[in-house]
């Protein structure tokens, strides 16, 4: 239990650093926010009033405390562009992005673990060589290119999948309690909507996952190769265990540790990379929101996005640390 508390404390510290960095971010942006907020025709007095009302006349550390308190309370300010609270905007845009990332991660895991495991087992075989070549090539292909290619071929030319969007026009009025439509559609037993959502999410998720999958396969393969060399594999074979039993009951759990660490980090990276995929596939989401905010110099919205993506990154890493701890009997016991 001590270890878990340590990881949580560590994550909170990381979160503090993150808040501090985003605070600096809004300070290093050129231009005086008070002048900008007061409008082009304001006089010096008016600007001073605005400055005081925004708290910008206070010392640096006081400003930071005020900012930190607001952020922790979920108040990221108001978007200069949508004129909505940024927190509300993000709460609306985050679920579709998280859905996309979870799907991409599922594809990643479903490919990386079995392929990495089998390539490691038949290390040096033609299959293994092919896997290595494809993985190296795959790790070098940019996500936006994969996305455009998949969209053009599978969606536009062959019409196997919808070209863009999150839902078909017919289902445009669908609403759910959580905003995670995949979940909502299942809760409401709207299987038609669920199928529609899956058709729409498949290509973007695939495009988002391939680069990460290439890395995942390589990491898994390397970790598993060193596991297969250990004597307990010989022992299991001598006991009469089938190759499948050796792979899944013995090697997999021991060799999964290094890969899991990487997958945990990939989760955060993927959320950052949704920008590319959402733009191409015209999906709502945090990535598209970020692009709009950046192009319109909506600094608070940008800061809000950075904070939330950072938060997801911190949480996913913490979760992986705790999972790794839970599956390691030695560490669990030593506590």
């Amino acid at each position, binding site marked *: 239990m001590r270890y878990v508390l340590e990881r949580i404390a560590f994550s909170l510290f990381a979160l503090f650093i993150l808040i501090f960095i985003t605070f600096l971010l809004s300070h290093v942006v050129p231009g005086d926010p008070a002048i900008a907020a007061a409008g082009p025709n304001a006089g010096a007095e008016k600007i001073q009033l605005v400055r005081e009302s925004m708290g910008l006349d206070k010392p640096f550390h006081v400003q930071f405390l005020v900012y930190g308190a607001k952020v922790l309370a979920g108040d990221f300010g108001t978007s200069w562009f949508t004129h909505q609270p940024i927190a509300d905007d993000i709460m609306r845009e985050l679920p579709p992005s998280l859905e996309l990332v979870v799907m991409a991660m599922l594809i990643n895991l479903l490919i990386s673990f079995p392929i990495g495991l089998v390539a490691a087992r038949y290390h040096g075989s033609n299959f293994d060589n092919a896997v290595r070549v494809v993985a190296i090539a795959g790790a070098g292909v940019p996500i936006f290119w994969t996305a455009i290619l998949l969209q053009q071929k599978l969606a536009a030319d062959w019409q196997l999948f919808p070209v863009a969007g999150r839902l078909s026009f017919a289902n445009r009025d669908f609403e759910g309690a959580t905003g995670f439509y995949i979940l909502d559609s299942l809760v409401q037993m709207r299987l038609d909507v669920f199928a529609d959502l899956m058709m729409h999410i498949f290509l973007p998720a695939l495009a988002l996952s391939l680069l990460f999958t290439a890395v995942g396969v390589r990491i898994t393969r390397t970790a598993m190769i060193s596991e297969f060399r250990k*004597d307990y594999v*010989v022992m299991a*074979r001598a006991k009469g265990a089938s190759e499948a039993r050796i792979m899944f009951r013995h090697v997999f*759990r*021991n060799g999964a540790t290094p890969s899991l660490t990487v997958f945990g980090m990939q989760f955060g990276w993927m959320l950052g990379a949704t920008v590319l995929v959402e733009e191409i596939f015209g999906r709502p989401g945090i990535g598209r929101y970020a692009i709009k905010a950046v192009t319109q110099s909506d600094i608070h919205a940008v800061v809000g996005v950075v904070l939330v993506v950072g938060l997801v990154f911190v949480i996913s890493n913490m979760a992986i640390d705790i999972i790794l701890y839970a599956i390691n009997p030695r560490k669990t016991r030593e506590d």
Partner: protein
Amino acid sequence: MPNSPSPTGNAERNAILKLEGVCVALAASRKTMVRNISFSVRPGEIFGLAGESGSGKTLLMRTIFGLHDDAFVEKGRMTFKNTEFSSSEHRRRVRKLLGREIGFVPQDPFSSLNPTMRIGRQIREALYLGKGISPKSAEAGKTTLELLKEVGISEPATAVGQYPDQFSGGMRQRIVIAIALSQEPSILVADEPTTALDAYTQRRIINLIIERSRNRNLAVILISHNLELLRKNVDRIAVMYGGQLFNILASDEIGSSASHPYTEALFKCIPRKDMNLADIQSIPGEPLSAGYGAAGCAFSSRCGLRRDICDTSEIPVNASLEQEFDACLVRAGRRP
């Protein structure tokens, strides 16, 4: 004398394991590493396989019992309990015997147990695979406790819930042996089972294996680089060098005329109580690894008896599966 040479016909019929002209090659390079190995092991016999590191003893054993992925039986024939295994399909067929007829104890007790699986589960898995006892049954639980007790684990009920890293090396090796014995094989191959352990623990582990062999008529192949350990504990010893089989002799005949010059040289390297430091010898030159490809005897460059014939003729092979065998080309000429 339990091991006096017997007529070959008789020995052949009785043997549990026969190797005839077995060659082992590496899968990647197809290089032959071990050549023309022929010997037989009787049921209940404790058979030692000696040689320096790299002599090919572990490679040979792991390959003929289907445990090695990177090597294969290139030529020759293995017979196990009257079933013949020719070189094609060897691995696939022999693997079906693993866990039932053949038990194996790897060298390093620190890595031969799965670190993330409880001891009890590892033993129950062996019982399931070897004897079809359901891992969740009461029988499996009871047998597991009995096995652990038998190999000298003091608190079996606690041990079954523990992980390998909670045990010392000696304890782990006992557990590994318990796993191998749980399947009641007819032959147990122990690959340097005590090398990683201290002298006292070594003694106890070896005794455990010997006791089991005597009680249950279990044939044991004990692989070791330690000739002294083998001399004291096994019935017959086969000596390998550079991937060749040099010598098979009864363990009490070491140092007698039945010894190959290499066996003798190895024997002289063993320090004994009555020796001064200066008396302990070493073999000149560097040991040769398995895969010696040239004609003649692999040991010739280090051998005091070397003649021209050693580098030009092929060494004798134990084609008729004699119980005792000497591959020295020089002595062959002199023998009656």
